């Protein structure tokens, strides 16, 4: 028996199904279960099972109250008074109260927390407790529909003992307490996480038990679904779509995560601070060649997917072009000696870092390494686990090039990635004109103005080349036909899962 089949067999034996258990696969278990620090889609999905916001999306994707009961906006639209539901308790039995909302906002805003979600509450100037179940929010400027921004998850103040400066290492991460439809039962030795229905949840929940299973080799996920060792895949590899669509035991559900892959340069580090180097390296890459083993997808020229209203179709994707590469690298002072690009006698040598959990990242990174080496560069590739990624890429910006993917909700708000002070601007990209356009887009009250501004951002970012934009892939979930009444939220996935049923 080959090692592959042995692994598959072991996986099939793990965690036998119960009639009412929904087992879904993630490439990698969430590194942290605390909405203050979530940065990956896997974490967002788990948060959706456990926590709730003041508001949420209904099935028509309209904002609807969740923990909020009623709200009143001041005539000048700078204050909102929110009364909370009085029938909500935390999973430890304590009642939801206004202090929880105030704590959550302050913790997100506290620089000591360094929350990845800080940008989502930057429009709130102050949050105060009016009484036990009433909160008043003051906004930095008038807000036409502030409820549309109040979808972030609320945390229990009583579960944190160190004030609003929360650490990633806080014990909450191991014993999260939410108000959501499921509660976390335990972390299992195989990196899976078991959840059970929250008996105090006010609404009906059709599936009693949910298990998140880590299946790091994505090639096995479809097989495990077909062998009924899983009931759900949150993201199907494009090459598995044919296999799954012809199987009557499985249903495919397309959904939109507005995701794009990229190779990002570290603009804070020489020689990648030189646009000629970035453009030269980009021109050495055959993007179609990188995409081929992954599946079919749209090759992109900028930071939006092609169907986006902000995608600038006049900008052409960067194509492999050896003469353009020579021109750009030459302008940066590099010459090709003995088949290798050098400057001042030193070869151009770079490191590409990729996250371990990025689907198909290994194939893409190795192919990228091969392409660049064939073009005369010295390239090392490293695959980082989540902790190393967060530390080196998010915190220290310690990398040459990164291979990664961003997913956006339907607003496709790229401000955090490309604003010079953006919280997710790992590449240290800075362009004053782009900053102005991003401000203009944020402040626009006319949809046409926002569209024009962001199409201009697309063009300018493409010209500056802080990233080589690669492609977008179609997002598909696959679920056993045993799972009924399925409706998938296009970004958070499990928002409507309480309504799902197991046959």
């Amino acid at each position: 028996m080959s090692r592959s089949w042995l692994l598959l067999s072991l996986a099939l034996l793990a965690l036998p199904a119960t009639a009412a258990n929904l087992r879904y696969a993630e490439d990698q278990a969430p590194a942290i279960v605390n909405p203050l620090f979530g940065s990956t889609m896997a974490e967002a999905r788990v948060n959706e099972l456990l926590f709730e916001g003041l508001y949420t999306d209904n099935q028509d994707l309209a904002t609807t109250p969740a923990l909020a009961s009623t709200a009143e906006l001041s005539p000048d639209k700078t204050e909102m008074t929110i009364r909370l539901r009085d029938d909500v308790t935390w999973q430890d039995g304590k009642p939801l109260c206004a202090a929880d909302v105030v704590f959550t906002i302050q913790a997100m805003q506290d620089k000591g927390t360094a929350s990845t979600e800080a940008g989502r509450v930057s429009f709130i100037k102050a949050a105060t407790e009016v009484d036990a179940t009433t909160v008043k929010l003051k906004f930095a400027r008038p807000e036409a529909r502030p409820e549309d921004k109040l979808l972030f998850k609320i945390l229990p103040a009583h579960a944190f003992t160190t004030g609003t400066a929360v650490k990633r290492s806080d014990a909450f991460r191991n014993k999260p307490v939410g108000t959501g439809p499921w509660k976390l039962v335990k972390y299992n030795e195989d990196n899976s996480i078991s959840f059970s229905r929250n008996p105090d949840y006010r609404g009906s929940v059709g599936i009693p038990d949910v298990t998140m299973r880590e299946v790091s080799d994505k090639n096995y996920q479809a097989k495990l679904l077909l062998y009924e060792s899983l009931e759900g895949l949150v993201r199907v590899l494009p090459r598995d779509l044919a296999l799954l669509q012809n199987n009557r035991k499985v249903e495919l559900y397309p959904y939109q995560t507005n995701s794009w892959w990229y190779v990002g340069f570290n603009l804070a580090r020489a020689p990648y601070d030189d646009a000629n180097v970035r453009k030269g390296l980009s021109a050495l890459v055959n993007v179609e060649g990188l995409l081929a083993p992954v599946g079919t997808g749209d090759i992109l020229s900028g930071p939006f997917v092609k169907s986006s209203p902000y995608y600038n179709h006049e900008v052409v994707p960067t194509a492999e072009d050896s003469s353009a590469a020579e021109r750009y690298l030459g302008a940066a002072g590099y010459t090709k000696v003995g088949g290798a690009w050098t400057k001042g006698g030193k070869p151009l040598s770079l490191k590409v870092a990729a996250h371990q959990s990025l689907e198909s990242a290994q194939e893409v990174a190795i192919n990228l390494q091969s392409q660049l080496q064939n073009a005369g560069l010295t390239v090392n590739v490293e695959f980082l686990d989540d902790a190393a990624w967060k530390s080196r890429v998010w915190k220290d910006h310690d990398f040459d090039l990164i291979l990664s993917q961003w997913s956006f909700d339907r607003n496709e708000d790229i401000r955090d990635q490309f604003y010079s002070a953006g919280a997710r601007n790992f590449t240290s990209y800075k362009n004053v004109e782009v900053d102005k356009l991003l401000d203009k887009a944020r402040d626009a009250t006319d949809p046409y103005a926002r569209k024009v501004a962001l199409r201009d951002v697309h063009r300018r970012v493409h010209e500056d080349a802080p990233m080589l934009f690669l492609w977008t892939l179609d997002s598909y979930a696959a679920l056993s036909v045993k799972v009924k009444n399925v409706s998938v939220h296009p970004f958070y996935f499990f928002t409507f899962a309480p309504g799902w049923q197991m046959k």
Partner: protein
Amino acid sequence: MLLLFSLLACGGAADVATPVPSGLDETWVATVVRAPERFDALVGTDRAGWIALHKNDWTTASYGGGVASQRAAAELAVLHGVLAGVSNDAWRAIGTTWEQRGNFPMDSALPRLIALASRDAGDETAATRWEKLPGRADPSLDERIALHARVRKGDADRGILLAASAQPMLEEVVSDGKRPFWDPMLHLTLSQSYGRVITAAYPTDPLERGLFSGMIDPADGAPAASRAKLGLTTPQSDDVEACRELVRGFDRALDGWKTALTATAPEAGKVLLDDLRLVDGLRARAIVDWSVEALGEDRPRCALAMAQMALDHEHPRAITPLNSPTLFAVLAQANLRTGHTREALDALEVLVAPFPETTGLDETVGDLAVLAGLDRAGDSREN
């Protein structure tokens, strides 16, 4: 090329096998597989047109002037009919969303454009209300409305409109630059224009009428009657699970029937069955027809669920022999009507290259998506 080869290779007499009793026995697929010489004779009249029709390339198919051309025009009429629904819904939603949000631009032609879309949607009350609002007058808009009236009556060529649709109908100068507006009446006019092909001269022969279509009943009975013949229950409500079960039941019926058909078909028929993926084609097109029907009955969730099950997921962003243009139009309208405006753009984007006249609709739905998100805080995650 494979199709061409198959079409060339399929001549000759065939052994007609005993039919397997099924509600699918009278479909065009059964005729083609059991009597491939009839298929050969028909496609021989306009090979390029029928190949294009099989590929769902209706624009090419419409050039030939024969039966395939008539069939393609009828398909285009349905396509633009669904797109007209998308357009009318999008324009009206722009009006209501912007009004609710505030800062609606009254010094604009926008109220009048929304009124036009409302009238085309049959909502005279809304049309009257929007017309009463102050708005910017524009003589070119009156000219365009008059042109639409002439094309709808058959007094002018739709080609003039198609040429004009490459650019915005109006561009208003505003403080941030230009605000372009695209023609809200285009797709209903095109639908009516293409639909004029369905006259007394439209083919009545079951194979001519049905080949590469979703028609199950050659008598062109209502889809519900066809489904009843297969023992399938038609959901009366917008019950997604019931609609998914309808498609699953259809799949079960097709699976068994295909096996039986293959066992009794002549060799030439089997080649056609497999190479042209006839059963898959019938399935996809029938489900799209049912989805259009569901949209017409105000069951958008059902329409969306069924259309997603019709989609060839190996090529989800391409028009193929299994993915018809109308499938993407249905996905667009069903998504739009269920609040998934951004997803509607995914479907429309597929249509823009083969149908450049949909550029304006794509931009208009994009405007709605942007408008709906003006007050939201975006979220982004890695992987």
